[in-house]
């Protein structure tokens, strides 16, 4: 299989994991989390630091799941009285704080230089191309597990409660549902998914730096989930594939339009994602916004 295709599938799967996390939070529960990249970054850094210290990949994965969940629980517990639009600002701010901490506190993880030489599991005995192939399969397996968790939650009685919270919190609480508990759980589980995605990301690239964890990541994932439709796990995967195609596809424009350089292309990508966001919200969520 072509190395480039393997890379794209791996990245799509990683983005899909972050998106499935956001699907639990926003899609099912209605929590507007604009800082999903914060949990992705914490997972990536936690796992990278542990792997560099010689820990087993399973240990790194566990840390990448647990630390973001703890952070999300903290966020949920200090913001329970916030209306949904304020939660959006808090999470957006959190993501920026996390990025700035990794950027400026060099003692944690190298500051702007980031971390290099992160071990990739399965690299030991295999050739680099075999390793990439195996790693893609491992990433897809994790994505499948997350998909099943999304599907289970949506079809179980717990999904009914989450949808009730999403559309009418007052009704849910009047029916004896502990809304804060459900919100905290979903923010935490969704953060874990982003964190594990971060662990795969760090190991796949073998290098991470704060520049990779900007608000743009949260936005890309949000667009993917919006394309997929609220609470639709399969839609999220399709949305992720579309967003990856937009992000990667723009690379090839360079070959046809000679005046576009790397900087212009990066800007073009952001313009396309931004336009996509506007169009999707106008076309797909018009009814919801009127309500």
């Amino acid at each position, binding site marked *: 299989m072509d190395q480039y295709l393997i890379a794209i599938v791996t990245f799509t799967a990683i983005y899909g994991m972050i998106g499935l996390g956001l699907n639990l939070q926003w899609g099912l529960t209605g929590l507007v989390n604009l800082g999903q990249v914060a949990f992705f970054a914490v997972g990536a850094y936690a796992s990278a630091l542990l792997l560099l210290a010689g820990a087993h990949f399973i240990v790194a994965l566990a840390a990448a799941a647990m630390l973001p969940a703890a952070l999300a629980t903290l966020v949920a517990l200090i913001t329970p009285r916030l209306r949904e639009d304020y939660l959006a600002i808090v999470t957006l701010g959190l993501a920026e704080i996390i990025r700035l901490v990794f950027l400026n506190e060099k003692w944690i993880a190298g500051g702007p230089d980031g971390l290099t030489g992160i071990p990739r599991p399965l690299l030991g005995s295999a050739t680099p191309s075999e390793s990439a192939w195996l790693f893609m399969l491992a990433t897809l397996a994790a994505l499948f597990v997350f998909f099943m968790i999304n599907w289970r939650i949506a079809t*179980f*009685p*717990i999904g*009914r409660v989450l949808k009730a919270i999403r559309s009418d919190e*007052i*009704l*849910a609480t009047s029916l*004896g549902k502990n809304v804060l508990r459900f919100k905290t759980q979903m923010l935490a589980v969704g953060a874990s998914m982003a964190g594990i995605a971060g662990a795969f990301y760090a190991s796949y690239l073998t290098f991470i730096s704060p520049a990779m964890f900007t608000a743009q990541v949260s936005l890309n994932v949000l667009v993917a989930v919006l394309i997929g439709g609220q609470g639709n796990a399969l839609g999220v995967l399709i949305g992720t594939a579309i967003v990856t195609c937009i992000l990667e596809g723009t690379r090839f424009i360079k070959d046809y339009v000679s005046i576009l350089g790397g900087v212009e292309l990066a800007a073009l990508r952001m313009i396309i994602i931004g336009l996509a966001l506007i169009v999707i919200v106008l076309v797909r969520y018009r009814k919801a916004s009127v309500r």
Partner: protein
Amino acid sequence: MSSTALEIREVRKAFGGNKALDGCTLTVRRGSITGVIGPNGAGKSTLFNIISGLLRPDRGELLFEDRRIDHLAPYQIARLGVARTFQTPREIGDMTTLENLMLVPEHQTGERLMSLISGWRRVWQEEREHQVDAVSVLDRVEMRHQQDMPATVLSIGQKKLLELARCLLAKPKLALLDEPTAGVNPRLIGDLVGVMEQMSRDGVTILIIEHNMNVVMNLCEHVIVLNRGRVLREGTPSEIQNDEVVQDAYLGAAV
């Protein structure tokens, strides 16, 4: 156990300068059907919101079965056995009527995260039981044929019936019914009164806000008249109906 289900002492609640409740004191006898009437803005719905915990009183005490509840969250009060309906019906529009009811039972195994990993059989078994209960409640309010319709397409009257159905299914100790017959097809009102009487026979204490005087006079054994955030009069329906002060404040205008 005392004979008092609910006791409200000197409760005040102001919104800005507007005193919705101003030293409201009343008791609801266990097992009774107690009506709350009064002009618009008398504080009836505020009273319900305070009892169910959606609003906190500025001052005063609430006791449910001799236990202070004014510091509890709404879900905790609901779990003590206080169910309510809303004046403006609330329903989850993108779920079916049946699913809306399936939300009601408490302590569902399938609502725990752990149930995703183990205990699937128990979850589905509970689901079947809850479905049977929900369908039988839908039968009682004559909405069986609407069980698979999304709740958003129901008429206002049907949504009010769904509110009552939810309250029936919760099997509460105290039911707070906020204008259950408003907007309901007149042909059904007699049935609704029957449903509420049956609830009462099943041991549920009922506190009901109602504008339909026929319903109040037929159903309630005790009537409380609220005016400007406090109790103006209370007594049996016939006492209230013949009270001049009440007639001036409310009934005179309504009847």
